[in-house]
């Protein structure tokens, strides 16, 4: 069961292209997808997934089930950074613990998209409005991380304006595009969907392949260059997603989510942010080392989730749900 799913995941083109990117770095190929194209591909993916999620929301509406799930997702985005911070504080110091807490409390949109791609690949249905849960879970951990850093750390060292931080947390480019596309999708509904489908759905999986090829390149490069990463960090970067996934699965079961939605909820808990969070941390907790929290999320947790985590979590869900 497990092995079959693992294979099915590995035979999904986006995952294969991710692996191809990592291979390119290991074989020291000079392959690159030059900037700023990957940035625009990321905007495209957020645009497409946000828009499609908005259209789904238009169809389903905000019933009590949807609202409950969104509320619980928000709670998870508050709980994860809190426990993470207190678990790491002794060992890594307040600034790094706070930054890692924010990183793992927030979510990785690309991992979420990889999860939807796996579900489509396997023909498992899921609710488009789970994108709204993702959008809600991006920002809170940033604010919590900074509050913790100031409360328990050297307050004078974090000189910044709250206005700036809140803007960074809630209006940074990726959150903004995702949220905006979600709202536009919800406004335009089926008519918008029909006219945009070739762009937002037709070429989606192909663009995802190209983007994951780049992600494979970048994450393997970052892994090779990460000198500040020790065994403890590696352990955390692999165990934290497993733990968060276990909790996510338990909560999803209690909420009565269907298998597809359960996987999406689980991956939101288990993934770590390497886009929105680092930008905010660099600005608000400059004493924390980006050479630690970025490679943990980007070069360890992300590949782990994409290559191993997704099929594993789904196997567990399939086992429990049936």
């Amino acid at each position: 069961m497990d092995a079959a799913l693992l294979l099915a995941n590995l035979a999904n083109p986006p995952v294969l292209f991710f692996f191809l990117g990592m291979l390119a770095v290991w074989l020291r190929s000079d392959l690159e997808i030059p900037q700023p194209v990957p940035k625009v591909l990321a905007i495209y993916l957020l645009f497409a997934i946000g828009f499609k999620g908005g259209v789904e929301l238009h169809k389903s509406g905000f019933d009590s089930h949807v609202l409950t799930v969104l509320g619980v997702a928000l709670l998870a985005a508050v709980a994860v950074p809190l426990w993470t911070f207190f678990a790491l504080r002794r060992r890594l110091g307040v600034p790094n613990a706070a930054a890692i807490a924010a990183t793992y409390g927030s979510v990785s949109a690309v991992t979420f998209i990889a999860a939807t791609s796996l579900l489509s690949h396997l023909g498992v249905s899921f609710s488009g409005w789970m994108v709204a849960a993702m959008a809600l879970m991006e920002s809170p951990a940033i604010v919590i991380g900074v509050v913790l850093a100031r409360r328990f750390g050297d307050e004078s060292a974090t000189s910044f304006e709250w206005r700036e931080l809140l803007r960074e947390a809630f209006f940074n480019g990726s959150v903004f595009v995702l949220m905006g596309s979600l709202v536009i999708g919800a406004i335009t509904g089926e008519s918008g969907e029909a006219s945009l489908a070739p762009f937002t759905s037709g070429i989606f999986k192909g663009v995802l392949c190209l983007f994951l090829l780049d992600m494979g390149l970048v994450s393997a490069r970052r892994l090779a260059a990460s000198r500040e990463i020790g065994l403890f960090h590696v352990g955390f970067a692999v165990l934290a997603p497993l733990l968060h996934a276990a909790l996510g699965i338990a909560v999803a079961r209690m909420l009565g989510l269907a298998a597809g939605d359960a996987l999406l909820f689980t991956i939101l808990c288990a993934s770590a942010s390497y886009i929105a969070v680092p930008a905010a941390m660099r600005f608000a907790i400059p004493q924390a080392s980006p050479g630690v929290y970025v490679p943990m999320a980007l070069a360890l947790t992300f590949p782990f989730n994409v290559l191993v985590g997704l099929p594993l979590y789904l196997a567990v869900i399939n086992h429990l749900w049936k």
Partner: protein
Amino acid sequence: MEAVKRIEIIIDTREMREVCRTLEALGVTGYSVIRDVTGRGDRGVQSGDELTDVFKNSLLLTAAPPESLAGIIAAIRPILKRRGGVCLVTDAQWVIH
């Protein structure tokens, strides 16, 4: 030609806006910015290949009259202290037109 100080500041792309605002507040009316600069320094490698502008530097170049140098440095130094980066000053001649 007029003797000027050629001031060069390399710093995180995300901090560049603050540097520009600081310079403008000091009355600097001319400067140029090169946005995509990678590099290596005390805070590690800035490889510029990420999806955000974290890990990317920008370079600002401004030619300023010698008497304004002290003020500029006094204003820039705290930013560099907090955020990293470098500031180099060279003597140059400005071709008046």
